């Protein structure tokens, strides 16, 4: 354990440019520990870039990103962050079990961790299957399983529930809640607003700027609507009126 107190993630004036265009325009926010924070917004709003900056694999143009009390990307964090990219990053020519055993070895996690995470994402029966023969949803979960190896303190998941049926989505969100209950911090991106209601906190992003930062209830109250999709639209209008 590193710094037990203070926020899990603290971002100050983060600016990122990709391909010569600024995509994050000076973001400032904090993510509390032991909660599920949803990163919401339409596709192309900068969710993935923001997550990459938190994990420390993104070249940033300016600002400060502090994760678990250390600057993002510092070597001590590499064992404490579980990260799953939007495109499932697993080896298609290895079985699910071989994939997980390899990443477990790289992270220095115990060998039976592979079995544990397969169980957790509901892939226990697919352990012997090659990545290339899995369905899209299974591949997604295999990639998610890698992020859970070795008891990370912070789990960053980019669109983990895309392409999953409602039952599986339900199960995964239960898993996220369980992890948060154990003190793990989760940052989960989604562009589906109905998933927002399952988060403790929401960070709504649009065109590289933060539109809202608070609890789902707070957001509903602020926008005076019960529906989070509607809330998002009102936020956009509000911002448009202010500009």
């Amino acid at each position: 354990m590193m710094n037990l107190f203070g926020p899990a993630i603290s971002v100050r004036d983060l600016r990122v440019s990709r391909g010569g265009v600024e995509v994050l325009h000076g973001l400032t926010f904090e993510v509390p520990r032991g909660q599920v924070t949803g990163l919401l917004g339409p596709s192309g709003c900068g969710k993935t870039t923001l997550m990459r900056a938190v994990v420390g694999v993104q070249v940033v143009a300016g600002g400060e990103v502090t994760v678990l009390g250390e600057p993002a990307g510092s070597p001590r964090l590499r064992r404490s962050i579980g990260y799953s990219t939007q495109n499932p990053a697993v080896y298609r020519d290895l079985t699910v079990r071989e994939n997980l055993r390899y990443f477990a070895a790289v992270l220095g996690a115990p060998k039976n961790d592979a079995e544990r995470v397969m169980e957790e994402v509901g892939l226990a029966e697919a352990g012997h299957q090659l990545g290339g023969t899995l369905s899209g949803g299974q591949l997604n979960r295999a990639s998610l399983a890698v992020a859970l190896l070795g008891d990370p303190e912070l789990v960053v998941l980019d669109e983990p529930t895309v392409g999953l049926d409602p039952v599986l989505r339900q199960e995964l969100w239960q898993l996220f809640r369980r992890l948060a209950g154990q003190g793990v911090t989760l940052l989960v991106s989604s562009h589906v607003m109905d998933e927002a209601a399952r988060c403790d906190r929401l960070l709504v992003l649009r065109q590289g700027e933060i539109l809202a930062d608070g609890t789902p209830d707070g957001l509903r109250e602020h926008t005076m609507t019960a529906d989070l999709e509607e809330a998002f639209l009102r936020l956009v209008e509000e911002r448009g009126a202010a500009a």
Partner: protein
Amino acid sequence: MSFAITMATARRIMNQLRHDHRTVALMVLVPTLVIILLYYVMDDERAFSAWAPILLCVFPFLVMFLVTSIGTLRERTSGTLERLMATPLGKFDLLLGYGIAFGVMACVQVALALTVSLTWLGLDLTGSLWPLVLVALLNALLGTALGLFCSAFARSEFQAVQFMPLVMIPQLLLGGILVPRAQMATVLEWVSNVLPMSYAIEAMKDAVGGGELGGEFWRDVVVVAGAALLALVLGAATLRRRTP
């Protein structure tokens, strides 16, 4: 760098190969088949004895260059490299992992080609066997290291494959196979002097030719090993934890 992570990476790459029988078969069989073809095309024991070592030199290099450049390119495009760069894995863990796994493959490849050449095809080997194996292995490592390095400059498999003739053919033309290096125009000889394959080919000729392996053989071996190491370091420099 960590020994455990390097070995886990080598094991992982071997596992990937294990699931891909056709690639393994091609890697192991193609050099031997081409050497057999050469034997029948030449139809002359002496000419064959001169050419076989060159093929034994070129093939491990060529095959390892190709599989490594494509392999690492796939690692880059599939997102597994980004994932690995967010873990404690060091750059050299990855590069050496590839080096070890493909080095083992090169051993198998060379072992089969040598066995067939020395028995069935009656290749005359006056000296001992180990210098030949050493040079072939160093070549495989050189190919692996250069493949890693070149893959950094390819955006797609199409581009990666094009690097093969670019890296390979000038080295063969200038390596003293077709024209002795001393007979080349001065500028070309200079270029030839800085290409690692020239030394590999000379070392291979010494290894097959028998006789005392003098300082010149060892100098060639050190140059090839040094070039492989340099390419590995350059390859590591192209791997970035943070990308734009």
